[in-house]
């Protein structure tokens, strides 16, 4: 019988240095992952604990005197309206610009344009706010008058239009400029990754360039476009400074061209410095609501993406 000496088995001797590096790296990765979860959990915990007094307080003590729900739902709607306006304007423009950069423009123009779009993301939001309040609102006020006169039968364009132009629509337009670079640069990256194989398959069938884009580029990029739009939505929902400066806030109004409406983030920013007692809890509870909305939006986005996984090309 062959005698096996375990101590001299060359397979059992490990190479010390390589293993140590492995352990350090996996430890570092694990720590980083846990840290993110811990921070997220900490923030959520803080929000919930601080918000509870607002939820349980008697209705009369909450700002407005009607309870927390009555306080929060108009500004939730205001937030959603502003974000929706931003996305409705920004998404088609961003996809168009991204397609132009990735598939139409000559290479030198494309890279230049890409830089300019990325530069839009580098402008601080307070500058956007100042631009919106001092310039855009004034310039756009006549257009609102025109909308009120000609499309006034639509509830969203009901007159009289705000003379200052500081409306939720202006805020939405400013937000759309702010989310444009996010959606554009992500979509552009996705479009550039379209497999040449699929583009050529479409062209070889006799597709024009636009048909090739519809056939190969957009379907391939759809999950990416959805993620990009959701990231933009996240920015639009949470944007504070621009809305606080641009919007002359007030009660919930159906008309987008009158002053009124308010968003959660701007409400918190404008009121937090002077708040005390239960008012602080109310504002933090509003923050918790915003957190839940953003979380929900992201989960819906994930769900949409996974629903089409079978057709995504990843398999």
């Amino acid at each position: 019988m062959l005698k096996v000496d375990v101590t001299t088995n060359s397979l059992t001797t490990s190479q010390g240095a390589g293993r140590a590096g492995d352990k350090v790296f996996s430890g570092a990765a694990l720590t980083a992952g846990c840290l993110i979860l811990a921070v997220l959990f900490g923030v959520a915990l803080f929000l919930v604990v601080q918000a509870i007094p607002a939820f349980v307080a008697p209705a009369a003590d909450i700002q407005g005197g009607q309870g927390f729900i009555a306080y929060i739902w108009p500004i939730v709607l205001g937030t959603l309206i502003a974000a929706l306006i931003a996305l409705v304007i920004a998404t088609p423009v961003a996809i168009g610009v991204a397609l132009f950069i990735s598939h139409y423009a000559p290479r030198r123009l494309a890279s230049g344009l890409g830089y300019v779009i990325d530069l839009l993301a580098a402008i601080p939001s307070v500058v956007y706010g100042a631009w919106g309040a001092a310039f855009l609102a004034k310039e756009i006020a006549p257009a609102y008058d025109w909308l009120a006169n000609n499309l006034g039968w639509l509830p969203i364009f009901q007159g009289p239009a705000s003379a200052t132009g500081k409306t939720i629509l202006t805020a939405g337009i400013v937000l759309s400029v702010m989310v444009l670079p996010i959606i554009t640069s992500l979509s552009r990256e996705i479009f550039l990754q379209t497999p040449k194989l699929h583009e050529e398959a479409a062209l070889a069938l006799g597709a024009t360039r636009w048909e090739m884009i519809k056939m190969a580029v957009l379907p391939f990029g759809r999950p990416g476009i959805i993620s990009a739009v959701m990231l933009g939505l996240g920015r639009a929902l949470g944007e504070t400074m621009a809305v606080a400066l641009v919007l002359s806030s007030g009660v919930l109004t159906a008309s987008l061209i009158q002053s009124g409406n308010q968003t959660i983030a701007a409400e918190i920013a404008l009121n937090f410095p002077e708040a005390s007692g239960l008012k602080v809890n109310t504002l933090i509870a509003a923050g918790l609501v915003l957190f839940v909305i953003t979380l929900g939006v992201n989960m819906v986005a994930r769900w949409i993406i996974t629903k089409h996984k079978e057709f995504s090309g990843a398999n």
Partner: protein
Amino acid sequence: MSKRIDVKDLNVYYGNFLAVEGVNINIEAKSVTAFIGPSGCGKSTFLRTLNRMHEVLPGARVEGEVLLDGDNLYGPGVDPVTVRTQVGMVFQRPNPFPTMSIRDNVLAGVKLNNKKISKGEADALVEKSLRGANLWNEVKDRLEKPGSGLSGGQQQRLCIARAIAVEPQVILMDEPCSALDPISTLAVEDLINELKDQYTVVIVTHNMQQAARVSDRTAFFNIAGTGKPGKLIEFADTTTIFNNPAQKATEDYVSGRFG
């Protein structure tokens, strides 16, 4: 439903680099023509000039004439999109659209240019094309499933079905079996034999046995050295090329002495 191709003095460029020089070749209708030659000799590049796919790459261009039944593909005012509906192409790697079902993949080319067809016509066309590609029996119960879920050989036959659904005059195949296993290869080769009853087929292959098995005529391309343009060395009946070639280089290549 098939046309012949005559190529006159064709030079193919990538930017300033001359990739293929001075090709003259006459490809008969309703036949299978194989292009063989060592890697980099320009046979795939030349194939892509036959449906104007070459110029999709930036800086790529050609000089000379390619006549499809007498009509110059590179004549003034000729739309490459029209050319490609007449001359279909199957690629080296199977490339069904991953976001489309099997059915939609077959119909992809037909639905272009906003052409509308009724559901009944579409169903009939899907069945006819898939039968034509010897794939119908394997996929008839899962037409709504994604094409990317098929095996490699099935995907390649799906691509052939997609190409013949638009009823082209000519089908170009760029090493259609190089990513397939032997059984799938056999299925595609059988299919090529059937396709030549209706279409003009041009196939690029690295596999000389395959060229010998499927083609009526064979063109041998070669390159003098790195950086030199590829040239058409010899073009004759497949049996002549493999048994009694006129050129020394052809004989060396088909007998396996180089390449």
